[in-house]
């Protein structure tokens, strides 16, 4: 049924990229809380990170001239796909313990699936990642499954 996804593209499924280390500061939590207009004091004061705080935290930081023409960062975990326009698809997070200021986290991302679907406006490619978030001591913090849609 798949016309867009070649065996070469599918070979990327299962790959992981370099784990990223993230130091969580109170200031970063407060910025996030302001941007998302959180109403609970523990988030506003940065005592604890809101549940979606780590979204995109794994993204590699590259210079502006290295960004795609649509502004997005090239994804080192993806081959060149035949569809180029990107939309957010959704998330499934499982929480093991809250994120607090001072946490040093290790984020490991794996490409777990690439599949094709027929959308109302044409073909779509769904890309699925799993991000495992642990403390430096190996304590599990969060598991994220994230979908991106290429159209």
């Amino acid at each position, binding site marked *: 049924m798949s016309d867009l996804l070649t065996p070469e593209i599918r070979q990327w499924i299962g790959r992981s990229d370099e784990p990223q280390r993230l130091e969580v500061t109170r200031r970063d939590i407060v910025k*996030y809380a302001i941007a998302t207009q959180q*109403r609970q004091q523990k988030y506003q004061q940065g005592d604890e990170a809101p549940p*979606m705080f780590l*979204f*995109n935290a794994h993204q590699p930081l590259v210079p502006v001239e290295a960004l795609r023409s649509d502004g997005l960062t090239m994804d080192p975990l993806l081959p060149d796909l035949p569809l180029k326009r990107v939309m957010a*698809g959704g998330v499934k*997070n499982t929480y093991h313990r809250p994120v607090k200021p001072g946490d040093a986290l290790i984020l490991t991302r794996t490409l777990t699936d690439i599949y094709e679907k027929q959308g109302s406006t044409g073909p779509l490619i769904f890309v699925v990642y799993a991000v495992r978030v642990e403390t430096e001591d190996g304590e599990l913090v969060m598991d994220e499954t994230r979908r991106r849609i290429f159209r």
Partner: protein
Amino acid sequence: MVSLFLYNAVIWNPHRIHFDETYTTQVEKHRGIVVDGPLQGDWLSQAVTEWLGDDGALLELEYSNRRAAYLGERLRAGGEVTAIDTSLGTVTLSIYIKNGNDVVTSPGRAVVRLRA
């Protein structure tokens, strides 16, 4: 609009569909500036954590961005309890973001554990 700008700054998302209207409508063929899917996900989390307060903990949060939402739309987050497991102390909720036409843009599900 300021919140949308700050959100994309804070998650380090330079995708032009969130700030470059000419590009967004002409190249990516959207109706207007796009409200991030994960920002809607955050609003879903706020609907759940504000309801929960300090009476428990969020265990799972799941949502799908089914249709795009655009700057200027009035979006509303809400949900309802769909299951209670008294032995585990967990409550499952069905959650949603709806637009001004009462159409769900992002449906989801959350599981919380209530403090004993």
